[in-house]
């Protein structure tokens, strides 16, 4: 299968980052280690490292985003890359041909990396199949398929707080069906070998055959939270009411919303995560989101270091220890 190795180069190194699926455990650990080396950069207020000097990174966002776009931009700038931002109105239909035309035009302007967000699953793969050999592609979210850098920064945050993955019980709560974040988290957590991985939601928000990804399914939040070490809440889109997926936000919060009382079923030192943006009072109570167990803001700041790591590694310039320190 030629396509299986699309995100690796001939030496097995990461050329693109399109999905967590297919990454080796050691590769994920390497990314997290590299990210850790950049965290100290931030602490020392050394804003920039020259790893990507002379490289041009294009943020190609076909779908609105604030957080992801901003952290990618910051990450690229801290690596001394030139950054170009192209926002494409999603309502204007971008057909495959014109999408690839645009890419080839940008390549002709000597761009080295595309960070892509698109509403269709598989968009990043399509782009990676058609870029010039020197260009790397980072998937910043494609449809319901994958959001690998988000999952990596979540793993980074978990490792920072919990150390080892092996003993952990992790619960992912919410709209698994439409969530690219959940899919990437599931691949990352199963690859890193957590002890138990649960997904919690009503059947309408659980995709068919999700067990094949290696998760336990439960429709009962209390059962899902019991003795969990890590609780990951997912954002609930308002459109789900129209699609007859759920009756109302109020009922959803009453049944699946994370409150302090519900959280008490998890381990006392459990951490609470959320990829953002948060719907307070829909999937999570403010008291929990802002509470002592929440690591939501740390996730955001870790996002910059993790994206720096991925960008520097895919452009073939993994930093030495001296460079990182």
């Amino acid at each position, binding site marked *: *299968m030629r*396509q*299986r190795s*699309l995100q690796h180069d001939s030496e097995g190194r990461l050329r693109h980052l399109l999905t967590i*699926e297919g990454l080796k455990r050691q590769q994920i650990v390497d990314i997290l280690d590299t990210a850790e080396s950049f965290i100290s950069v931030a602490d020392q207020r050394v804003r920039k490292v020259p790893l990507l000097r002379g490289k041009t990174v294009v943020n190609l966002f076909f779908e609105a985003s604030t957080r992801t776009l901003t952290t990618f931009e910051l990450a690229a700038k801290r690596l001394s890359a030139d950054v170009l931002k192209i926002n494409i109105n999603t309502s204007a239909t971008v*057909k*495959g*041909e014109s*999408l*690839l035309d645009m890419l080839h035009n940008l390549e002709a302007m000597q761009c080295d990396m595309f960070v892509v967000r*698109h509403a*269709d*699953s*598989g*968009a990043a*793969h*399509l782009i990676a199949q*058609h870029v010039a050999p020197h260009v790397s592609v980072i998937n910043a979210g*494609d*449809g*319901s*398929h*994958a959001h690998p850098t988000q999952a990596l920064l979540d793993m980074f945050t978990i490792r920072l707080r919990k150390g080892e993955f092996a003993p952990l019980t992790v619960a992912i709560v919410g709209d698994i069906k439409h969530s*690219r974040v959940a*899919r990437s988290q599931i691949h990352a957590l199963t690859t890193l070998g957590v002890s138990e991985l649960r997904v919690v939601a009503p059947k309408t928000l659980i*995709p*068919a*055959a*999700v067990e*094949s*990804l290696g998760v336990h399914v439960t429709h009962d939040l209390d059962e899902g939270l019991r003795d969990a070490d890590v609780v990951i809440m997912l954002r609930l889109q308002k459109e789900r009411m129209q699609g007859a997926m759920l009756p109302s936000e109020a009922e959803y919060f009453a049944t699946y919303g994370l409150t302090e009382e519900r959280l008490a079923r998890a381990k006392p030192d459990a951490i609470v995560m959320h990829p953002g943006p948060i719907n307070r009072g829909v999937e999570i109570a403010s008291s929990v989101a802002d509470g002592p167990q929440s690591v939501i803001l740390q996730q955001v700041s870790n996002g910059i270091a993790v994206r720096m790591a991925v960008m520097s590694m895919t452009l073939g310039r993994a930093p030495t220890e001296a460079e990182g320190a």
Partner: protein
Amino acid sequence: MNISIQHGRLIDPANGIDTHADLHIAEGVVAGIGEPPQGFEADSHINAEGLVVCPGLVDLRARLREPGGESRATIASETAAAAAAGITTLVCPPDPSQPIDTPALVDLIRHRAKQSGHCRVLPLGALTLGLAGQQLAEMATLRQAGCIGVSNGLQAVESTAVMRRAMEYAASQGLTVFLHAEDPWLAAGGCAHEGAVSVRLGLTGIPEAAETIAVARELQLIEQTGVRAHFHHLSSARAVRMIARAQYDGLPVSADVAAHQLYLTDMDIGYFDTLCHVRPPLRTQRDRDGLRAGLKAGGISAICSDHQPLGADAKLAPFPASEPGISALETLLPLTLRLAEEGLLSLSEAIARITQRPAEILGLLEDGQGGRLGVGDRADVCVFDPEPYQELRAEDLVSAGHNTPFLGWEFKGRVNCTLMAGELTYHSCD
């Protein structure tokens, strides 16, 4: 013009013939088998030594794109591809750009097909006006104009009441209804089978129930209305069993399967291979095995190409935004022969599924108008080489659409020549 096809292995499943015999053709019909009939003088000879001589293939479902989609393919280009694939009759379903709901459209398609002269094209008339599922199409008029049956194409007839009346009316006109079984609500927005692959890739799934619910509804209505019905391109094992059950109960239903469904599964999508984006979707290995079992048992009597030629740009898009379809005329015979090679069907039975059986469904067989090579029958003939493997390459495809996931596969069954009503429509260069 009198032609003798000599020294070939004649396989004519409808007549139970599989023997080495010459085939003699005069005035567009079969004049004799074995020894030439008295007074027969051949004007030309075709040496079929080492080759198989069988009835011309009958394809129950192929989209030609014309009128309206000429940028992708034309009747001339696709019927030429059909001839190169040994096909002498093909059925063209309506679709929104060619709804085939007026006699003028029927005339146009038939005229263009006749003009190019490569293959007989039998249009399916619209079941409802504009395929909108609201008002009945002028079915009797469409039949008069030359439609072989009626169909709503891939468009759903949402209203059960309209479907019932359409079937009642078709039954009154003695027309067969050709059905694409898909519940429009369950299939909405979907692009792949709902299962392990769609969950992994984050693709909106089309559940098996989208097919089985539609099959169940149509079977109830078929029973009630007494219409003769044919299900196009089944994709799920469960639907196959439902139809076999209905046949057992005596309902006048038949079914076909697209050749690619007998080989590919949703796993072949891999990482978003848009060439495997088809409708109905590729389902699981269990479904593929069920379709094969149904074919062997006979509940599915025919294999069709479900040909859909597309331009390159149609597949150069993220999977959900890419257009479904496979350019499939030229793999119909090779994929069918492979079933014989794999031992699922005998060679003669495999050939029957793309000749005799589809001709039977279309009502051509009994009149000797296709699918059979008895004396006096229309001389639609396919001569192919059953032996050497040959790689399928894009540059060898005659169809304007090169969208096939089978490029690089090795196949037997290269067509040597094709005759339609005794006229040579294709001859390979060597």
